[in-house]
C-alpha cells in the first residue's frame, strides 16, 4: 500500500496487541492525526475518547488500512498492517457507527457473504452463521430481509459480521449510537462477554458513563493528538491529580480532622455533606490501609471509607478545558 519510503521505527520486542508509533495522517491541507503514539495490551478494552473532529475515526480507519498514513508505524498482533495489509485485515474486526448493509439480502445471506469473504469453507459456513446469529440474538430473524431490521438489530448484525473471522482485535466506532436503551444494554453485555473471552477491543463512544463500565484503559484525543492514555485509574490520576478519598462518619468530624492534619500525605479536608468528608491523598494502597487502621484505632465512627471514583466525563471535561486553555 505504501507509495514510497514509509518511515519505520524499529521497535524491538513489541509485545502489545496494538502498537502505534509516530502516526501522522493528512487530508488535503489539514493534518487530521499528528505524531500519535499509543499501545493497547492484549485483552484490554480501550476507550478512545475525544470531541468531534479529534481524529478518532481517522485513527481507526488508518489502523484498518482504509487510509494510508503520511508516515508512522502500526503493528497489530505482530503484523505491520501497512506492510502487509492482507495479513493485517484478518486480525482486525471493525464495526462503524452507522452500519452499512446490503438492502437486497436476507440476514443469513449477509453473514454468509462475509464468511465467504474471509475464506470460511463452504460447508462450515451455515454453522458459523448460526453461531454468530445466536451470539447476537438474531437467529429468529435469519430469514428476514436486512431492511426490515431495527437500528439496534442492524448494529448487532454488523457485530456478528465483525466477529466472523474471529479477529483478536475489535474496533467499535460509536457502537451504541442511535440505539434504544434496551439495545444499548444488549450491546454492552455482548461487548463485556467478548472482553471476557480475551478479545482486545478499541471502542470509541460519546456515552462516557457507559464506557467507564467496561473500559480497562482509555485514551483521550484532541485535535489529532493523544493527550493522555493509560488505565482508567492512571488517566484519572494524571488528569485529576492525587487520589480523592471519601470518608463518612457518624457525628462531628473534629477527631477525624485532627488525625488527618497529622498525616503529611493528606491534603486539605473538605466537608462536602453532613458527616461526609473528602481529601486528596498522595499515598500507596498500603498507606491508605494504614490510614484507615489509624482512624479506626482513634475511635472515629466510620461508616464508609474509600477512594472517590472520578467519572470519565469529569476527566474528559478537565482535559478538554486544559487543552483549550
Amino acid at each position, binding site marked *: *500500500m505504501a*507509495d*514510497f*519510503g*514509509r*518511515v519505520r521505527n524499529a521497535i524491538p520486542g513489541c509485545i502489545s496487541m496494538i502498537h502505534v508509533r509516530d502516526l*501522522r495522517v*493528512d*487530508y*488535503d*491541507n*489539514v493534518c487530521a492525526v499528528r505524531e500519535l503514539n499509543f499501545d493497547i495490551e492484549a485483552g484490554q478494552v480501550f476507550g478512545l475518547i475525544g470531541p468531534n473532529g479529534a481524529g478518532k475515526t481517522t485513527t481507526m*480507519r488508518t489502523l*484498518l*488500512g*482504509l*487510509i*494510508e498514513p*503520511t*508516515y508512522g508505524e502500526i503493528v497489530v498482533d505482530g503484523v505491520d498492517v501497512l506492510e502487509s495489509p*492482507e495479513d493485517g*485485515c*484478518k486480525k*482486525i474486526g*471493525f464495526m*462503524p457507527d*452507522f452500519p*452499512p*448493509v*446490503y438492502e*437486497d*439480502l436476507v440476514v443469513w*445471506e449477509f453473514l454468509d*457473504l*462475509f464468511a*465467504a*469473504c*474471509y*475464506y470460511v469453507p*463452504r460447508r462450515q459456513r451455515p454453522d458459523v452463521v448460526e453461531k454468530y446469529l445466536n451470539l447476537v440474538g438474531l437467529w429468529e430473524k435469519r430469514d428476514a430481509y436486512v431492511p426490515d431490521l431495527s437500528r439496534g438489530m442492524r448494529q448487532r448484525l454488523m457485530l456478528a*459480521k465483525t466477529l466472523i473471522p474471529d479477529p483478536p482485535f475489535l474496533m467499535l466506532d460509536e457502537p451504541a449510537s442511535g440505539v434504544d436503551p434496551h439495545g444499548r444494554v444488549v450491546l454492552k453485555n455482548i461487548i463485556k462477554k467478548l472482553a471476557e473471552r480475551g478479545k482486545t477491543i478499541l471502542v470509541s463512544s460519546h456515552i462516557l458513563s457507559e464506557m467507564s463500565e467496561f473500559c480497562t484503559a482509555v485514551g483521550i484525543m484532541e485535535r489529532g493528538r493523544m493527550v493522555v492514555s493509560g488505565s482508567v485509574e492512571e488517566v484519572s490520576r494524571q488528569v485529576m491529580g492525587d487520589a480523592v478519598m471519601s470518608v463518612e462518619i457518624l457525628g462531628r468530624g473534629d477527631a477525624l480532622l485532627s488525625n488527618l492534619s497529622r498525616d503529611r500525605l493528606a491534603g486539605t479536608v473538605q466537608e462536602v455533606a453532613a458527616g461526609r468528608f473528602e481529601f486528596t491523598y498522595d499515598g500507596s494502597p498500603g498507606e491508605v490501609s494504614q490510614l484507615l487502621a489509624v482512624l479506626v484505632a482513634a475511635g472515629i465512627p466510620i461508616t464508609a471509607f474509600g477512594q472517590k471514583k472520578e467519572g470519565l466525563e469529569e476527566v474528559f471535561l478537565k482535559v478538554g478545558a486544559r487543552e483549550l486553555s
Partner: protein
Amino acid sequence: MREFFDLASNPMFVKHIRSRLRKSSLLPGVVIIAFLSLCIVFINDFVIKDAMRNPDPDSGSQMFFFLQGFILVLMGGSQVASSIAQMKESGIIDFHRITPIPPKVQAVGILLGAPIRELILYSITLPFALYLAISGPVGITDFSKLLLVQIGGAIMYYTLAMITGLTTSKARGASGRFVAILALLNIAAPMFFTFGVYGPTLITATPVYMEVFYGEEQAAARKRNQQKRVQKQQQQGGFNPNPPPQQVGGAKKQPNQPVPQNQPVPADDDDVDRIKITFYGLNVPIVLQSLMFQFGVLTFLFIAASRRIHSARLPLYHKPTALMFLATMSFLTLGSLWDANTLPLTLGGVYFLSVFAVLLTNTITPALGDIVKGMQRAFKISESRVPIWSDLSSNKFLLMTLAVTIAVTMAIGIVHSDPNARLGGLIDFTPWPSLLVGVLTILSYGFASQYIAIAYGNRARGYFVLFLFFAWFVPIIIGMIIMAQEREVGGYVLTMSPIIGITLAGTGLPRVDQDVLQVLSIAPVAALSLIFMVLLFREERKLRDEIIDEHERREHKRRKRAAKEEEEYEQERPRRDDDERPRP
C-alpha cells in the same frame, strides 16, 4: 489466478446471483424479452418478408442488434454503475476493502455479477437472433462477429461503469453519468467513421456493425443472391411482378421497374460503402481489430477499477501504468490509421490522443493533500524530493512524457503518410502545426490543473472549470460572433481555442492568412503551458518551504519542552530525595 476465474467461489458474484436472480424480479423481464423477441421474428418473417415482399430482410437482425445492445450495454452497464455507487455511498465497500479477497477478484465478481439479470435476458434473445441470422442474409459468421464485439464491448463498458460508480459522489447520478458517457462515445464514433477516421471508433461496435450490414462483402453477397433470384425468375416467367429491393450504400430502395430479360443486374460497386481498415498495412479482420482495441481499453480500465476498489484515495493509475495505457492506445490508433491520408490521420489521431491524454492527466494529477503527504514523507526520510513516479508527486514529469509519446507517435504516422494527400482534393493541409497545438494543449491543461489543485485546495475544481471556460470556450463564442461580420478577425479569435485551433492550424481558412492563423493557434497554448509550469514550480517550492518551517518549528518546540522538563526535574530533586527517605 484460479481465484480470479472461479466465479462459483467469488463472494461478490454469489451475492449478486442471490440478490438479482430472485424469481419475482427475474420472471417479468424474461417474459417481456421473450415476447419482444417473438415480435421481432414475426415482423421480420411475416411483415417485412411476406407483406412487404422483401425476400432477404436483415431488419430483424438489426432490431436484435439494437435490442441486445440496449439490454447488455445500457441496462447492464447502468446496473453495474448504480450497484457499485450504492456500495460506495453506504460505506459497505469499506468492509470489502478490509477482507482478504484481492480487489481484482472482487472487481470480477461485481463486473459479471451486477449485470447478471441483464446477461440472462440477453441470452434469451440469442436463439431468436441466431434463427434470423441463419435464415436471413446475415449468416452465422457475421452473427458471430456481432456477438463477439457485443460481448467484448459490454464487458469493457461494465468496467467503465464500475469506474463511473466508484468516482461518482452520489449513487443516484452514477447510472445517468454512465449513460451520458456511453451516448457520447456512440455518437462520436459514427461521426469519426463518416469522416474516414476509423481507428478510434474500433472501441465501439460501429465498424463491425457497418461491415456486417453495410459492408462491401455483405452488399456484394446480397447482389449475387439477387442476381440468382432474378435469373431464376426470368427462366421461369420472364417478368418479375415482385421485384426485390436493392441495397444502395446502406439505404434500401424498392425498384418498381420490370427487369429486362437476359440482362443480369450489374454489381454496382460505386453504391457500396467500402470499409477498409488495415492494421499497420496488414489486412487484419475488423472484428479482430475491434477486439484488440476493446481488450486494450478493458485491461487498463480494469486496473483502474481494481485500484479504486482497493482504496478510495488511490489515484486511478500509477504514473507508469498511465503512460503504458497511452502508449498502448497510441500504438493501436496509429496502426488503424496507418493507411489513411495525412489529414484524417493527423486530425483523427491528434484529437483522439489529446482527449485521451487529457482524461489520463485527470487520473494522475494528485490533490493538494497527496502532494503535502508526499512532501511530509520525503522530509521525514530526509529525501530532498518526492520520486517522480510516485503517486504523491506532481504530474509535471509524466505530463511531459505523455506529450512526447503523442508527439512521437503522430510524427511517425505523418512521416509515413502521403504528404500530398488532400481532403477531397480541396484543402491544403500542413500537419505539424496541428500536432504542436495538440501537444501544447495537453501540457497547458496538465500544468494548469496541477497548479490550481495545489494553489486552491478544495476550491480547485471551480477555478479549473473557469480556466477551461476562458481558455477553450470563450474564443469559440467570441470568434463565432465576430465571424458573422468580420470573417478574418473572427477566424483569428476562433483559432485561439485549442478545440478549433488543432484543425485550423493545419487546414487554415479560405481568405484568411494561414501564417497568422498558425501563430494564433500555437501562441495561446504555448503561453499557458509556460505560465502554468512556472507557477507550478513556484507553488511547489512554497509548499516545501512551509513544510520545512513546520518541522523546524515543531522541533524547536520539542527541544524547548524537553529543556523545561529537565529544569523541572532538577528543581524537584530535593523534595523527591526527601520523599524517598524512610518515614519515622
